[in-house]
């Protein structure tokens, strides 16, 4: 591990300024991904600015019924919160299906969003990787592809985003609150970014995971007031029953009218793209359609029509389709 200086900031503004001024500085929260990447020499900050006690570790209910989740809320507390479990069960389930009890106790809400891909080539400094070293090439194109993307990838990067939590947040229309050096439009110069727009597709600059600019700090995540989100769930398919990243995961919420047609639906996919993948096309195909196995399959097909699988992960096409259908059928069962 490269030597580094450890610093505290007293306020969010001071942390933002400190990081903006230090070219080789990084924020430290729970550290469960960053410390590992530093040990692997993938991350080589010269200064760590500890922000774990700077942002809120509470989940606050706002007057309109929204929930504001402080960036320092541990993953464990988020998953255990009674309001989250009752109003947005998909979020609790997604968090609980990620990592282990020990990791969830340290990992934070903000840090979870900013964790890096677990692509084996990204984490191995002896192999080419455009995300780690722009221009060096993508080893996965001719290599191990089981964990790679089928949607929205580019010739320079086929890595997937590893978060389960972010997939549920994408389905729930969450908003990410950011404090930046430049200031923003909200109170206290807060920037507000829809979660579905926080993470980027790789294009030809896969070294950038998100749209955040240097120094910007996530301070909270907001969930809009609950609607039909109480009927929501997370389904994750992986190579072992627990403590593994998703091959494919689905976060979904479903609202079926009395006549049996889909009034509204939200679907997001994990394990398939460089970002949590909101399945807008599948949703569009389902609204107003009968809530049946056939419609669910057609909706999944509509989303996956734009997929470009690699030889080593073509199985994800059927897996994603079947997991979408199974999750929606589960929700039909739950609503009955």
């Amino acid at each position, binding site marked *: 591990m490269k030597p580094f200086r*450890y610093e505290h900031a007293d306020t969010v503004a001071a942390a933002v300024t400190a990081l903006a001024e230090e070219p080789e500085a990084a924020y430290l929260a729970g550290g469960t991904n960053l*410390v590992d990447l530093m040990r692997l020499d993938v991350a080589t900050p010269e200064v760590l600015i500890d922000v774990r006690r700077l942002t809120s570790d509470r989940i606050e209910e706002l007057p309109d019924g929204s929930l504001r989740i402080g960036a320092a809320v541990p993953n464990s507390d988020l998953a255990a919160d009674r309001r989250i479990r009752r109003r947005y069960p998909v979020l609790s389930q997604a968090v*609980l*299906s990620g990592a282990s009890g*020990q*990791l969830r106790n*340290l990992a934070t809400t903000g840090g979870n969003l900013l964790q890096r891909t677990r692509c084996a080539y990204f984490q191995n400094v002896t192999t080419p990787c455009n995300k780690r070293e722009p221009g060096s090439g993508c080893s996965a194109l001719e290599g191990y592809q089981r964990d790679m993307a089928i949607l929205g990838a580019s010739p320079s990067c086929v890595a997937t985003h590893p978060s389960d939590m972010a997939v549920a947040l994408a389905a729930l229309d969450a908003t990410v609150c950011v404090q930046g050096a430049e200031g923003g439009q909200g109170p206290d110069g807060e920037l507000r970014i829809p979660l579905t727009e926080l993470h980027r597709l790789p294009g030809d600059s896969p070294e950038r995971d998100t749209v955040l600019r240097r120094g910007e700090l996530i301070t909270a995540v907001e969930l809009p007031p609950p609607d039909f989100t109480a009927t929501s769930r997370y389904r994750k398919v992986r190579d072992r029953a627990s403590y593994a990243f998703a091959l494919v995961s689905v976060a979904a919420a479903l609202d079926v009218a009395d006549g049996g047609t889909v009034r509204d639906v939200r679907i997001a996919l994990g394990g398939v793209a460089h970002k949590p993948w909101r399945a807008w096309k599948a949703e569009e195909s389902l609204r107003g359609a009968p809530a049946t196995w056939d419609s669910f399959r057609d909706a999944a097909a509509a989303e996956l029509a734009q997929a470009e699988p690699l030889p080593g992960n073509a199985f994800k096409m059927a897996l994603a389709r079947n997991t979408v259908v199974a999750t929606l059928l589960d929700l039909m069962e739950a609503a009955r």
Partner: protein
Amino acid sequence: MDVEITLRVDGTDHRLTVDTRTTLLDALRERLGNTSPKKGCDHGQCGACTILLDDRRALGCLALAVAHQGADIVTAAGLVNGGGGEGDGLHPLQRSFIAHDAFQCGYCTPGQICSAVGMLREAAAGWPSAVAKDPNAADVVLDDEEIAERMSGNLCRCAAYANIVPAIADVAHRDEVAAHRDEGARR
């Protein structure tokens, strides 16, 4: 870069100078001579380094010592006498692991036991798991599936799981019986 820090470990404060790169795991083992947390993978994948940080289970290998000053750190060694043990001073989980022959080489055992201590507290607080049938249930029933899921962050290369799960279940169910008894006594 060296920094002077204070760590509270198993009830005792220690003042020491460490390089900022030092993890809690290395500080405990290499600097304080407490070798009960083990270094397995050193990447947060095996759970052998599990300790309790302010009563919550956590991985010592991914926690920088400099970032956890002021935390109450408890290791498997510190559970002896402090965990409501009787006679031999062992924590009930430690005694149960012995009674159930819940280890072979024993390398993962201190991490398993610290993890189980934290896990039982989480279940008692009503925290759900990924295998919960009803995520909104008020109480957690720790059947074998729940225990396996909640303990999935601790790997055992000897595959002693067949005895680890019953060792934990035994203590969990004794706690449940005790909780019901206490509740009955209060009525």
